[in-house]
């Protein structure tokens, strides 16, 4: 319990510290220190949950079980490594005059604020508070997307604000409907949104209202996941915001929004007794996956390209949760980890690449292996990992997903396979010239910190070769929670 309070206290204190005191030279290191503390405390929580089972806080306000604890740990970890990367990266941005001290103060305060909202969203027991903190995540990041104050970044920020705001309102309507359905069966006015209470009463809730609620929730939180057709904000926000933001948006926010959808699916399924929620998720997931794969071919900006790859992978995970069986769910949970680790590693590399080439345009980036081999190799290996090549973890989770699809929906295998091939081609058509080839003269080495990338990709490789028993147990527990039975 103390660990949980500390987990939330550290980022919150960071928010106020940076917000009130402002920017000073060692702010980057302090940002790292706070993120490390947060990570350590989530590690303690994780061990507690693993040893003693789910934790429910005394006021029933927080609830941590196998499903959210691993995301909590993942969030704190990616938050920490990105903070390590962002210190030097942002110092470079200040040095070349893209941002000033006042905006750096905003940047650090909002970085911690964003981590805080993500951790609250994951650890809360109250589905209303879940909504409040995911909306809070939009509010903390919207000014970071437009941090550079160029016309493009302002446009991206505005789009992000309006599209996500409108989308998330639909999710609130869905939450109100769930509360409305719960009020009939749950005693106590204030308990109607508590996950632990709803879980027990889900079977009795009205199917008509719950089905309607899920449609709104899927559209609402789906906007945040980046599901097509409400994905437009995502590539803009990723490409125009500072790179550490892209890393944590892709690595954390998308996962947390999907987490919200899956939580509600776990309520809607017993209430309905049909596969409606799963079918909807399969449909939207497949659509996003296919559209994003095709759009990968049209990109000219390296960060945009990888944000479409994020949409593609989130679509795939949504699809996997939609299929629903234990194998697909296990694969989806694993895919959430490996995608988040790989994608944040790629964005960190891309940040360095953009500094080396002085541009984010794909046709300006050439011969990275010549200019700075360490970054070039990181870029090459990261892209191979995200494309799903063995022996990396994404291959493993996609393999599980394929196996599950062949079992339950054999006719969906061809579109899935074609989609993966198209996406693969979309990534690799640009990769070769960026990594190999002759570097242009104006490309120069930069002070890069590639250690976060090495650690991330090492973990992804490890998960691809052998999932540690501890993690497998854990994911198995989460799978049992979500679909009723595990695979181990």
């Amino acid at each position, binding site marked *: 319990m103390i660990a949980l309070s500390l987990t939330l206290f550290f980022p919150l204190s960071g928010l106020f510290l940076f917000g009130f005191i402002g920017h000073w030279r060692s702010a980057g290191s302090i940002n790292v220190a706070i993120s490390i503390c947060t990570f350590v405390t989530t590690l303690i929580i994780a061990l507690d949950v693993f040893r003693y089972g789910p934790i429910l806080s005394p006021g029933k306000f927080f609830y941590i079980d196998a499903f959210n604890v691993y995301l909590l740990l993942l969030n704190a970890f990616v938050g920490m490594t990105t903070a390590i990367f962002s210190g030097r990266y942002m110092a470079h941005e200040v040095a070349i005059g893209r941002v000033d001290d006042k905006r750096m103060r905003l940047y650090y305060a909002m970085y911690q604020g964003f981590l805080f909202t993500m951790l609250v969203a994951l650890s809360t027991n109250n589905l209303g508070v879940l909504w409040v903190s995911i909306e809070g995540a939009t509010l903390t990041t919207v000014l970071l997307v437009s941090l550079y104050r160029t016309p493009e970044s302002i446009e991206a920020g505005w789009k992000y604000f309006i599209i996500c705001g409108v989308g998330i309102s639909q999710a609130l309507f869905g939450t109100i409907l769930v*509360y409305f359905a719960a009020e009939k069966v749950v005693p106590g006015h204030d308990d109607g949104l508590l996950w632990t209470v709803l879980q027990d009463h889900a079977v009795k809730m009205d199917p008509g209202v719950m089905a309607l609620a899920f449609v709104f929730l899927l559209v609402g939180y789906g906007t945040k996941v980046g599901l097509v057709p409400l994905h437009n904000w995502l590539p803009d926000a990723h490409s125009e915001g500072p790179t550490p933001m892209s890393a944590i948006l892709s690595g954390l926010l998308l996962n947390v929004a999907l987490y919200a959808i899956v939580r509600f699916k776990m309520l809607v399924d017993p209430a309905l007794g049909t596969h409606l929620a799963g079918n909807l998720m399969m449909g939207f997931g497949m659509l996003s996956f296919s559209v994003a794969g095709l759009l990968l071919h049209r990109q000219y900006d390296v960060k945009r390209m990888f944000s479409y790859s994020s949409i593609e992978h989130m679509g795939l995970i949504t699809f996997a949760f939609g299929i629903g069986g234990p194998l697909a769910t296990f694969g989806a949970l694993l895919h959430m980890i490996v995608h988040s680790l790989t994608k944040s590693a790629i964005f960190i590399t891309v940040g360095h690449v953009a500094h080396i080439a002085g541009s984010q345009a794909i046709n300006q980036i050439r011969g990275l292996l010549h200019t700075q081999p360490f970054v070039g190799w990181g870029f090459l290996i990261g892209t191979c990992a995200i494309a799903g090549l063995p022996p990396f973890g994404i291959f493993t989770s996609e393999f599980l997903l394929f196996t599950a699809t062949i079992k339950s929906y054999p006719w969906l295998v061809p579109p899935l396979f074609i989609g993966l091939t198209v996406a693969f081609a979309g990534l690799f058509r640009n990769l070769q010239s960026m990594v190999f080839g002759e570097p242009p003269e104006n490309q120069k080495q930069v002070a890069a910190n590639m250690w976060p990338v090495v650690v991330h990709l090492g973990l992804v490789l490890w998960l691809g070769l052998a999932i540690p028993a501890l993690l497998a147990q854990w994911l198995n527990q989460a799978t049992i929670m979500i679909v009723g039975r595990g695979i181990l």
Partner: protein
Amino acid sequence: MLIATLSLPEQVVLMLAALILLSSFLMLAQVRLDSMINTFALQGLLLFFATLIMALISGKYQLLISAALTLFLKVFFIPNKLRGLVVRLDINREIESITNPSLIMLFAASLVLFSYYVALPIRALSLLATRNTIAISLAVVLIGMLMIISRRKAVTQVVGFMSMENGLFFAAVVATCGMPMVVELGIAFDVLVAAILFGVFFFHIRTEIGSLDTDRLNHLTEVEK
């Protein structure tokens, strides 16, 4: 359901619901920014009265806090802030042209029908006499969305966004007599922060683009320029 069989306060809530929907239509058709902000404040005031009456009917006095929050945020704080902003940006007398106003109004009317259709399973279930107001609150949300889509001025889009929030709040009040307090407070806080951030954004857009027409925000596309 016969209107006459309902008690007087319930009838008043139904009338307020109708007026809230009407104010949404008014905002949709309003071309002058200052009048639009006034209409928005009026909608907030209607919402405040509806919440107040619901609190008295249901005996759930925590709704009084929600009512007070509505009065503060939706009637005073946000409209005043928007008024101040349009005066400072010197656009308070600007007229915004709407393309195909009659088509948009017809579309909004069909959204109301659609909301009634969608809300059928809910109406069958509610124990409250005010049940068909859920359809109205959904209609208010959808009309707010239509306003964001059909208009070009950033200020109008914000008013549309906030009126969507009004619809959601109204749904929570009439369907379930308000959400748990901690959620209500959280939502109010989010709305407050969003209103402040929108203000900040107006200045950024104005500085960078030179106008508050969101049509001019068209740099980011899928094709290389």
